[in-house]
């Protein structure tokens, strides 16, 4: 499991291995596709209060945005690797799968504030009229730890 210090509130109801990764990590890898061709991007993310939504921001002109408009199914990888040999016994990797929607309307202010509480340096970016706040609604978490142990967590809607 991750040994990093938890700097953000841990979403309740999820196993510690998941909630601590969500709280400690700042960047995630987003997987989308364009006509079957996989496409991956690095995104800054924050977890919603119950850990069932994962928020990230992107401009509406980006490739990932276009991909998600065509097919909202996506996956996010959040991990605690340190790019060292010790990763093999220490690092944990969490994969989240589910549909992504753009956050609009009444929800946006609250979720944008939550996102910026974790990523304050992205204030200008998020507040730009061309930037979309996106939310992945998690259906399944897959947590890999100890190099090869994989547990799946299905979240009821």
């Amino acid at each position, binding site marked *: 499991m991750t040994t990093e210090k938890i700097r953000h509130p841990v979403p309740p*109801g*999820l*196993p510690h291995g998941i909630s601590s990764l969500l709280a400690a990590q700042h960047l995630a890898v987003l997987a989308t596709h364009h006509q079957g061709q996989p496409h991956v991007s690095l995104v800054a993310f924050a977890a919603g209060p119950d850990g069932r939504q994962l928020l990230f921001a992107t401009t509406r002109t980006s490739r990932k945005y276009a991909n998600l408009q065509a097919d909202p199914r996506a996956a996010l990888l959040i991990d605690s690797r340190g790019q060292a*040999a*010790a990763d*093999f*016994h*220490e690092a944990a990797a969490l994969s989240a799968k589910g549909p992504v929607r753009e956050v609009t309307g009444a929800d946006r202010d609250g979720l944008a504030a939550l996102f910026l509480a974790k990523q304050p340096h992205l204030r200008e970016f998020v507040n730009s009229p061309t930037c979309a706040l996106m939310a992945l609604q998690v259906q399944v978490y*897959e947590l*890999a730890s*100890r*190099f*090869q*142990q*994989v*547990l*799946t*967590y*299905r*979240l*009821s809607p």
Partner: protein
Amino acid sequence: MSLLIPLDHITPALLPQIGGKAFVLAQLAQQGFRVPRAASLPIAAYNAYVDATGLRERILMELNRKDFQDMRWEEIWDAALRIRNMFLTTPLPADLAAALTAAVHEFCGDAAVAVRSSAPGEDSAQASFAGLHESYVNVRGAEAIVQHILLVWASLWSDAALLYRQELGLDVAASAMAVVIQELVTGECSGVAFSRSPADDTQTVIEAVYGLNQGLVDGVVEPDRWLIDRQNRRLTHVPPSSRPAAYQPEGQTVALRDLDPRQAARPPLTESQVWEIFALAQQAEAAFGSPQDVEWTIRQGDVHVLQSRPITTVATEKKDQRPWYLSLRRSFANLQMLRQRIEGELLPAMTAAADAFQQEDLANLSDADLAAASQRRREAYNHWKAVYWRDFIPFAHGMRLFGQLYNDAMRPQDPYEFMTLLAGAPLASLARNRRLEALAAQVRQDAALAELVRQRRVSALPPEFQRELDEFLRQFGDLSCPVTGGQCQQGPEAILRLVLEMADHPPRAAAPPVDAASLTQAFFEKFTGSKRQEAAAILELAQASYRLRDDDNLYLGRLEAQKTAAMNEARRRLQDRGLDLSAELPDDEILKALQNPAYVPQLPEKAEQTSSAVIEQARQLIGQPAGPGLARGPARVIQAFADLADFHHGEILVCDAVDPNMTFVVPLAAAVVERRGGMLIHGAIIAREYGLPCVTGVADATRLIHTGDTITVDGYLGLVIID
């Protein structure tokens, strides 16, 4: 810079690099004590080796397969064995090997040396690692010395050392090992001196043996003891019961040799030498400012100090668990005695107890007598279960002792290759399964017989088949009762079902033949003379240990069956009274109701199930690879013995621990998954005998895997994948 640091170059600043043993030797030398010429190989060499070869991460991955707290010590032993083998099979990088060999050669040439562990933190006042790490005495020649340096490094990861560091809360990941290379002083006699006795600090204790110190340290040679009152200098001599033998250098090691009778007749120290050692102990205490445990040897009248360390037991309140950890290592002599006790006393006594219970006619006992009989059977079972843990489980060390000898001699890529030399010994449960297979073979070939069995028309079965069935029931029948959910001695139902299931499928092919004979021969060729005889004796012991690992379960299983039979009779009587009995009703409640007709048995309160919106499922679980192979099939999770009755051919047996009664179904299984960990446990041994993929030590296996799940067992990597 040379890799080796001679004693006279050692300064206090180097302590974290060279470890306590080297540092103390340097201090002794600098204070004028006579110490053997020595040099330290600091932890830098260890670190360079484990970093350049990738061993550092491989070790941590091995230890991180599971939470250390959740590991049984058998699993820790297995991890330690695998790690030790990594050191044996991972050569030093060429440049380090060349530099180290040159430095060692320059230091000691062809002189015999001792290669000793000197872990930082070792021999400090806070923690005594004495005996936890390895030292090797009488090693000669740079190449051999370098090989033994690897063994000393590996001993940093022995099961005892791992457990002890865990106990002290030391960071396992940060540990490293330094080594002392010390010229061997072959004394005529050797010993230890405690400047203050751990038992009574008004006294100094001196212990001495002829020859080298090994016998004294290992507890093999009983020493002469002298107790000296530190105040009034009164001297008391306590001779040993006899002085039969002494350790002497021999070849590349040391060996126990008989003493000359004239030598054996007198103590190894003269009185003036006793006083010389006494003075030495007081000087060491004064030099280090605390009570000391001094190891010494006398050569041609000169006393040499081999090492000195603080006595940790004086005035320390904290309970020292180290002796317990050390007891995990058992000597050959100790295991031989244990074997005699088990084979000569314990197993016959268990058989006698089970036989006596079998004579009792439960059906004709009064309710009160039945309650008393049940109680006696429970007590007997609990007693023998305790014996099982105390004496039978430690006897598994016989396999371990051989495993280490084999791996040292052969350096195999597979650290469990030694099991091949143990397998094939006749196991009781395999004999039982062969009898079942013989019955199944008849049914397979004879459709008419199969139909009779299917209809359970026992009386119509051919006499010859019936005779074999009766014989099986007589010999093993009472073991089958848990398979039927606790219906003991109720006839051949369970066995017939099993025979039919086996007959419906082709017989299981025997495990691929392994050439045990040529491996055994190659192993013996590594030894000559008396060493070969010793190796043969250890192999023989290990084979007995391997057999018992299986058979002991059957002995205990018979007693358990007797206990169950009495409880079943009690349940039957309560049901006859019209009571509606739940299977979960505890035995105590049953017995209370049996003795008191007015009593209504109570179900235990159940913990409330918490519902959760998050559903946990396992995708891939990690355990220990305990039997090579790959298999895929439906899981059959055994939560209770009754679940075995539903076992079908081709299913994967998933259980908490393979119990003797479960081995019935192993020939039907495609693979075995066990929560309990270890390579040398019953389930792993049986799986290996049948050539089945096996993964043990899967935490929560019976919770995370469900009957009917399609699972894949990767017995090479120790993984279970759930579809």
